[in-house]
């Protein structure tokens, strides 16, 4: 395996259907690993697997990132034994958002696994994984699936729950467009659909559409319920941005 190089295999990720068209069937894998025996050995082993093609192999670092951005592989196998691996994973996410990242050599500590997940890594392999299992994880990652142990899945769910507790829910009016908020403000002033249409210079049918959307977004059935819901949210302290309701736009203290 040539070091520091993309593998020279033009059009190798396509197969002919026999009708002149080509269908992409092979999974293009890039290996970013500092240990040469892993890097070259994996390239050699994966290159022999049906359905996989090794697009490139490189040490972890800027050169790897540049190649990944250029080659846009389906999957990057990333050696996470190096301290900069999470930063590299985030950079890969930015420059090749369609590429799935599989971490190689993970240490199953809570903090480390969450750092991997937050860096956008979707597949996790310890060094005790077999080559056969590694291939299964690569194939799954290429399909956009996240492969992790039940323990990690549990940690991630707990992390999400903790984040959800810390985060205030969006105020109801945040679900509405600017025009819908204008219409809500006019409903609040007891204007009819026709009066709202005249006020905004639009058709009555358009007003009806907006009202329908407002009710649907707020999960209520009547205009009065929508107003009550929004007022309740305002009193609870949600920031209010509905034009015309400026007297209630201050956050409750």
């Amino acid at each position, binding site marked *: *395996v040539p070091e520091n190089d993309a593998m020279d295999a033009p059009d190798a990720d396509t197969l002919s259907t026999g009708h002149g068209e080509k269908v992409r069937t092979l999974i293009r894998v890039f290996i970013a690993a500092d240990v*040469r*025996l*892993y890097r*070259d*050995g*994996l390239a*050699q*082993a994966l290159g*022999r697997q049906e359905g996989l093609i090794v697009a490139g192999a490189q040490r972890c670092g800027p050169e790897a990132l540049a190649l990944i951005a250029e080659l846009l592989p389906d999957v990057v196998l990333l050696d996470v034994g190096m301290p900069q691996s999470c930063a590299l994973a985030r950079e890969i996410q930015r420059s090749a958002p369609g590429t799935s990242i599989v971490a*190689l050599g993970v240490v199953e500590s809570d903090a480390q696994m969450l750092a991997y997940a937050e860096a956008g890594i979707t597949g996790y*392999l310890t*060094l*005790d*994984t*077999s*080559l*056969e299992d*590694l291939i299964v994880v690569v194939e799954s990652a290429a399909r956009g699936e996240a492969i992790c142990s039940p323990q990690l899945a549990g940690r991630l769910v707990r992390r999400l729950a903790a984040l959800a507790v810390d985060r205030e829910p969006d105020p109801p009016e945040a679900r509405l467009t600017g025009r819908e908020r204008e219409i809500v403000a006019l409903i609040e002033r007891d204007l009819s659909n026709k009066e709202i249409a005249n006020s905004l210079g639009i058709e009555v049918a358009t007003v009806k559409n907006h009202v329908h959307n407002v009710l649907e977004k707020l999960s209520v059935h009547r205009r009065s319920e929508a107003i009550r819901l929004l007022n309740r949210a305002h009193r609870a302290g949600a920031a209010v941005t509905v034009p015309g309701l400026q007297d209630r736009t201050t956050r409750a203290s």
Partner: protein
Amino acid sequence: VERSRIFVGNMPRLLRDIVEEIVRSQPDMEITAHHEEGEFRIEPHQADVVILGEHADAELKIATVANDKRGANLVDPRRLSTVELSPQVLLAAIRAAASKTR
């Protein structure tokens, strides 16, 4: 082609699989056995070359004792520290070791 018999052990599963893949791709080598977990014996497998994992900082010395209790060998491993270990370097080392055992 006379094949060198290789025993692989005492290393993480992924590394062992990679080493075995490298060895199996060679017409003059074969994996005679590998070590999974726990204690292992090399002698029954009649290996020409044994590949063992060791800690990166270790300076391993190996003494072997013949079954007839009369002979012994002190093996002084030579480090391949001048070059980064690649599949090619590993294969060259195996061939060099195998040529000495014959």
